[in-house]
C-alpha cells in the first residue's frame, strides 16, 4: 500500500466498501457451506444464472475470480503444476488450470487444501458454466467432471453477428432461446434441490440487480468528464459488486448510489482522479495485471489517466424492462441488451466486429481517449483474441494508437514493469503524434 500513500491517484472513498464485498463473499461462502448451505461454482454468466441461484438460496462461488486470488497469493503455481501433471495442456487458461489443480488436490485430501487463499472454495453441488464469450468456460467445467461428481449445467447465450442479428425475427427467437434455457435451468434446480422456485423473490432480486447495474452504468457515464473523476483502478475494485453479486443486493445498490454521489461531486467540482494535470486519457483492455497495479500509479505520475476499460465488465445501456412481467424474460432481455445493445450503431458504421471491437470505438470517442493500453494474456484467449482487431479498428477509424504490453493471468513474471514503463515512455510520443493527426483529419475532440 506504499504506493497509495504517495497519492498518485485520488482513490474514491466509496470504492472501499464495494471492494470489501469480494472478501466478504469468500468468507460468506465458507460459513454458509459450514452451515450446510449448498454451493454452486459459477462461471461469470453475466447476469443470467446468479440471481436464479440466489433466489433458490444457493451460494455462488466464482473459480475464475479465485484464479486471480490464487495468483495474487502466490498459491497458483502448486495448483498449476498439479493440473499440468494431470495432462492438461499448458497453453490453456491459467485460471482453469489453477482450478483443475485446486480441485484435484481438494478431492485427494477430502477437504479444502490447507493454506488455500481466502479460506478456499467449498465443494459444490453444481457447476454452472456458460456458453458466453469464452470456450474455456464450458470446457473447463466439463473437465472438472474428472474430479467432481457434481452435475454441470451449461447456460446458453446467443452471440449473433451484427448483420445476422438484424434478420427479421432474429431478435425474438434469440430472446425466446434464452428464456427457454433459463426455464429449463430453473426446472433442473428445482429437481436438484427438491424445492420450488420462489418466483416473487426472484422478481424482486432481478429488479435489484437491474437497478444496481443502472446506477453502476450512470457512474461510468460520469467518467466522460474532463478531467475524468474515476480511474480504472477504482472501477476494477468495485466491479465485483455487479459481476459477482454477493450478499444482499439492496446493500450493493446502496453502495453504488453512494459511489455515484462521490463521483458526481467530483465532476461538479472539477476534481480529477489524478492529483496532477490529466495529460493522456486511456482505454484499457482487458484484464489488468492484478499483481502489478502499482504500474498504473507510475503511469499516473506521468499524467496518464485510465478513463474506461473492458466493455464486458460494464453494465448494459439501460432499457425499459418494466413492462416485461416474466422475470426470466427480464433477465434475458437485460443480458441480450448487454451483448447487442450497440449493434444497430455498429451496423450503421459497417463494423462487423460486433461486441468484440465496436464498443471500444464508441468508448474511445465518448471518453475522448488518446490511446489504448492492450494487455494480451498468454493463457487467456478470450481477453486476447480481439485485441489486434481493436488495435486496427481504433487506428483505422479514429487514429488512436495502442500500446501492447504482454502479460499473463497466472504467470505473473510475464509482465515486466520496467520494460513496460520504457515502452510507455515511448508511447507518449506516439499519442502526441496521433493527436496531431486526428486534429488534421478533424477527428480531435
Amino acid at each position, binding site marked *: 500500500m506504499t504506493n497509495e500513500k504517495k497519492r498518485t491517484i485520488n482513490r474514491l472513498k466509496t470504492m472501499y466498501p464495494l471492494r470489501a464485498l469480494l472478501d466478504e463473499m469468500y468468507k460468506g461462502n465458507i460459513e454458509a457451506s459450514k452451515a450446510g448451505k449448498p454451493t454452486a461454482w459459477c462461471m461469470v454468466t453475466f447476469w443470467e444464472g446468479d440471481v436464479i441461484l440466489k433466489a433458490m438460496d444457493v451460494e455462488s462461488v466464482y473459480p475464475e475470480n479465485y484464479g486471480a486470488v490464487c495468483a495474487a497469493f502466490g498459491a497458483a503455481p502448486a495448483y498449476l503444476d498439479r493440473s499440468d501433471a494431470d495432462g492438461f*495442456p499448458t497453453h490453456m487458461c491459467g485460471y482453469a488450470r489453477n482450478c483443475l489443480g485446486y480441485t484435484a488436490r481438494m478431492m485427494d485430501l477430502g477437504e479444502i487444501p490447507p493454506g488455500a487463499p481466502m479460506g478456499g472454495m467449498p465443494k459444490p453441488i453444481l457447476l454452472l458454466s456458460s*456458453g458466453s464469450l469464452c470456450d474455456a468456460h464450458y470446457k473447463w467445467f*466439463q473437465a472438472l467432471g474428472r474430479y467432481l461428481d457434481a452435475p*454441470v449445467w*451449461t447456460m446458453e447465450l*446467443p452471440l449473433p*453477428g451484427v448483420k445476422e442479428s438484424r434478420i427479421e425475427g432474429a431478435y425474438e427467437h434469440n430472446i425466446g432461446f434464452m428464456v427457454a*434455457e433459463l426455464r429449463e435451468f430453473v426446472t433442473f434446480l428445482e429437481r436438484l434441490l427438491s424445492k420450488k422456485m420462489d418466483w416473487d423473490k426472484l422478481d424482486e432480486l432481478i429488479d435489484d440487480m437491474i437497478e444496481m447495474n443502472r446506477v453502476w452504468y450512470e457512474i461510468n457515464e460520469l467518467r466522460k468528464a474532463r478531467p475524468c473523476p474515476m480511474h480504472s483502478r477504482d472501477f476494477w475494485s468495485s466491479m465485483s459488486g455487479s459481476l459477482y453479486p454477493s450478499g444482499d443486493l439492496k446493500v450493493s445498490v446502496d453502495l453504488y448510489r453512494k459511489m455515484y454521489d462521490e463521483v458526481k461531486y467530483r465532476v461538479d467540482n472539477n476534481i480529477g482522479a489524478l492529483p496532477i494535470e490529466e495529460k493522456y486519457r486511456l482505454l484499457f483492455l482487458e484484464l489488468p495485471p492484478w499483481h502489478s497495479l502499482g504500474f498504473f500509479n507510475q503511469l499516473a505520475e506521468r499524467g496518464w489517466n485510465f478513463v474506461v476499460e473492458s466493455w464486458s465488465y460494464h453494465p448494459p445501456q439501460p432499457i425499459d424492462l418494466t413492462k416485461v412481467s416474466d422475470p426470466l424474460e427480464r433477465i434475458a432481455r437485460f443480458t441480450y441488451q448487454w451483448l447487442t445493445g450497440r449493434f444497430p450503431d455498429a451496423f450503421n458504421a459497417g463494423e462487423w466486429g460486433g461486441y468484440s471491437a465496436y464498443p471500444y470505438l464508441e468508448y474511445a470517442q465518448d471518453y475522448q481517449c488518446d490511446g489504448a493500453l492492450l494487455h494480451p494474456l*498468454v493463457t487467456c484467449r478470450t481477453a486476447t483474441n480481439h485485441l489486434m482487431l481493436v488495435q486496427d479498428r481504433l487506428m483505422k477509424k479514429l487514429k488512436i494508437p495502442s500500446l501492447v504490453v504482454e502479460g499473463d493471468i497466472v504467470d505473473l513474471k510475464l509482465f515486466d514493469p520496467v520494460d513496460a514503463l520504457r515502452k510507455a515512455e515511448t508511447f507518449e510520443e506516439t499519442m502526441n503524434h496521433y493527436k496531431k493527426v486526428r486534429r488534421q483529419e478533424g477527428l480531435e475532440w
Partner: protein
Amino acid sequence: MVMESQGLARVREIYHDRSHRVKQLKAAGEKVIGYFCVYPVLEMLTALNLVPYRVFGDMREPITKADSCLPTVVCPFIRSALDLGLKGKYDFLDGVVMAHVCEVGEKTAHIWNLYLNPPYFHFIDTPHTVHKAAQKQHKELLKDFEKTLELFTGKELSPGRLREAIEAHNQQRALVRELYNLRKPDPPLISGTETLQVMVALMSLPVEEGNKLLRQVINEVKGRKDGLQKKTRLLIWGSIIDDVALIEMIEGLGANLVMDDTCVGSRFYFPDVELTDDPLDGLAYRYLVELKCPRTFREAVFGETKKDYMADLDSRFSYLKEYAREWNVNGVILQSVRYCDIHGYEVPQVKDYLDSIGLPSIYLEHDYSEAALAPLRTRVQAFLEVIS
C-alpha cells in the same frame, strides 16, 4: 481431347491443386461458397446450386498477414486460413459461411467479413449444447441462413430440392463409409495418407461430382493387388488435419493409420441426415446433435442431477471403442494444434477413457506448420516402439 484421369490419380490432382475445379465451375457461371469446419449446412448450399468449398489453411506457408488482426496465441489453423484469405488466395469465393465452432472461429468469422467483404457472408451462431431449447434455436438459425441465401441467389429454397440435396449428401456419406470399410482388413487396402487426400478432394468438388469420383476410387481400391504391408494399426483423434504431412510422417515411421476421428474424415461424414417432413428438422438435428465434435457440450444424461465420470466418458466416447474394435486398432494418436481449447480440455478425458479400455495413446501438440513437425517424429517413433 484430354483424357480425364480417374480414381486416385484424379484425387491426387485435385489434392495438389484444390481450387482448380471450382474455378472452372465459376468460369462457367456457377457460384462457389467457402465454408469453415463442419457446422455450416451444406445441403442448403447444394439445393440452391451453390458449390460448397471447404476453406483450409496451408501448413507450408508462413503466416504473415493474419497477425495484424489475430494474435499469435490462437489456433494456427485459423490464423493460416485467414492469412490465405488476406493474401487473396480465396478471392474466387462468391461467399463464405462460418459457424460458431469455437471462440476464435467466431471472431475470425467477423474479421473475415470485415476485411475480405465477400459478396455473400453468413455466420451461424451454432448453440453450444444439445438442450431442447438449443435444438429449436438451431432450426431458427437455419431459417435465418435460408433467408440470406435466398436473398443472395434470388431463388427460393424448395423443400423438394432440399430433400434431393440431402439424399445426394447422404449418398456421399454412405460411399465414404464404404471406403472406410476398405481400411478394416489387415493390411488396409488404402493408406491414411490416400484417404485424407480423398477427403480433401471431396471437400473441393460439388457433391455429385464427388460421388462419382468416390465410386471410381472405391472400385480401384477394391481391386488392388500389391497394396500396403501389415504394420501397427493406429487411430488418430483430434483437431483438424487438412494436409497429409502429419499422416505421411506417421505412416513413414512404420504404421498404418486405419481410422480417424477428425473433421476431415469420419467426424464429418459418418452421421447421415434423417429425411424428416420438414427437412430443416433433420438437418438441424444432425448438424447440432449428431456431429461429434468436442466444441459441443454434452453430458451423460441431460438434466440428470447426478453425475458419474466414467459413465459420462462412456456416453461421450464409446464410439471410439467401436472404431477401435471394428478397425482393429493397436493404438491411438491424440493430436491437437496448439492453442485449441476445444480439444485441449478434452485430451485428459479421452486419455482416461482409452486407458480404461486398455488402448495405448499418445498426445501430440503441433503448430500447424510442416517445418515444425520434425520434433514429433521421435515421439511418434518411440510410441510405436512401445506399443509394438
